[in-house]
């Protein structure tokens, strides 16, 4: 039996987000969704439960609007959910504090989360949580197995993969390749809508961060596009030869 916690992030659907003529992100009307790697984390957590027995608790640090994301997690097999409200923007240290404030009152063997999220990509949360909980981190896993009281993963590194393990409780961050998140059947989605969600509040101060600008990067490319292949080839060959020198 394992007691699994899964950390879920809700983000705006960045694929749908556009920037205006000044390069400012247009955020109004963009729907929220469960962040990509969080889905892999949910799937990994639910698979651990299915294999070893136990329970999966989902935690979202978000807002009142995060219930939709939690319901999606329920439909995928998460048993209980806690939404911590008070999210004011991407700041990993605040997120880590909010989550540990809840974790310290919970019983658990493993905390599963995505290694980096698709919007901000800081990749800080796994290490932050390890420091704040005092539990070992097994980072960037593309497989997880439980053996008695220890967890073993295959860690994907830049140049090599490593087989590493630690005693539980442990924190495990997952890659996008670890699994294919399931698409829950309609019945489960409907049942998920009726399940209660525990709401908590976190009133954390933000560190001294001042956003000076947040704009689409300017492209200063020449954009010489040839629709006539025969005109394009000699031009491109010239450029290649130039750059090869």
């Amino acid at each position: 039996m394992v007691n699994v916690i899964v950390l879920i992030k809700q983000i705006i659907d960045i694929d749908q987000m556009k920037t205006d003529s000044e390069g400012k992100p247009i955020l109004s009307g963009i729907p929220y969704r469960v962040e990509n790697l969080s889905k892999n984390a949910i799937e990994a957590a639910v698979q651990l439960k299915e294999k070893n027995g136990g329970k999966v608790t989902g935690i979202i640090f978000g807002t009142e609007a995060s219930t939709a994301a939690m319901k999606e997690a329920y439909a995928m097999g998460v048993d209980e959910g806690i939404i911590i409200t008070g999210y004011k923007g991407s700041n990993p240290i605040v997120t880590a504090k909010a989550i540990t404030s809840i974790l310290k009152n919970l019983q658990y063997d493993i905390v599963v989360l995505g290694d980096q999220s698709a919007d901000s990509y800081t990749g800080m949360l796994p290490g932050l949580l390890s420091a704040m909980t005092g539990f070992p981190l097994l980072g960037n896993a593309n497989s997880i197995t439980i053996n008695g009281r220890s967890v073993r993963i295959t860690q994907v590194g830049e140049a090599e993969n490593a087989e590493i393990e630690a005693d539980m409780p442990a924190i495990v961050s997952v890659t996008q390749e670890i699994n294919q998140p399931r698409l829950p059947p309609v019945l489960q989605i409907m049942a998920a809508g009726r399940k209660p969600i525990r709401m908590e509040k976190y009133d954390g101060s933000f560190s001294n961060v001042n956003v000076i600008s947040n704009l689409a990067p300017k492209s200063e490319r020449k954009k010489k596009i040839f629709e006539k292949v025969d005109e394009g080839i000699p031009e491109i060959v010239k450029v290649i030869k130039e750059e090869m020198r």
Partner: protein
Amino acid sequence: MKALVVSDDINFLKQACTLVNGKAEYDAVYVGEGRVSGVGASTLYTVKKGTPYDAVADGILEIMGNYDIIVAGSTEFGREVAGYIAGKTGYYAATEIFSLEFSNGKAKTKRFFYGGKTVIEEESDAKVFTVAPGVIEAKEFESKPEEKDLPIKPSKVRVNKVVPKNAGGVRLEDAKIIVSVGRGIGSKENISKIEPLVNAVKGELAGSRPVCMDYGWLSEDRQVGLSGKKVSPKLYIALGISGQIQHIAGMRNSKTVIAINKDKNAPIFQECDYGIVGDIFAIVPKIVEELKK
């Protein structure tokens, strides 16, 4: 100001040192094998390859009193160390940065946000930084650092086995010319049709995520993009790549970009210097022929 620069990868270490050089005095921690030169640090701490993040980070915390800031290369290991140190100290971490300035005791940094669709410029009291890979061109610095051992602490993680991904390992980050293929290549077999071009330009072969990850037509270490390598060659040739923002985030710093795509509305044409609208299989052999002349 005194910085401690940390990485388990020699190139990331040099990139991070390049970013810090001139802005702070710095020492370096290298976790790995082999001799380290050209980083420009005053003191070089070397740590045995494969030492877990917590053993290294607790060691750094021990000597942290000598430093104002910690700068880590953003490898998996680097992010774990940076996160752990931020968690223990409570310092704000500015992550995945590619630009760093200090004024009035504040750090001014730039990083990509919204999956690469925007760049955020921030001013903060950050004391921990991770440096986005491949965005800064690593310089070689003259120095004869004093070599020391980092006080390594016990780890809670046991390392059973390390398997290198592929011997030799491509270093796309260092490539001068990159020929990159996207889903438009169609199959693994078709890659051989592109190889004559790769050879003719003496380039390295790379790919988009579907090609490297989803289909495995190329190995993972050849993936360019937000979740892959950040490259900055003199010439980047994109073949059958649509140019989604997550791909652009990895090749944006290329000096010159050439794109070939059969869809004239493909976003890659907004991010290239020269483009041809057409079929890669018809055009690439002709380019190779012309290059041989």
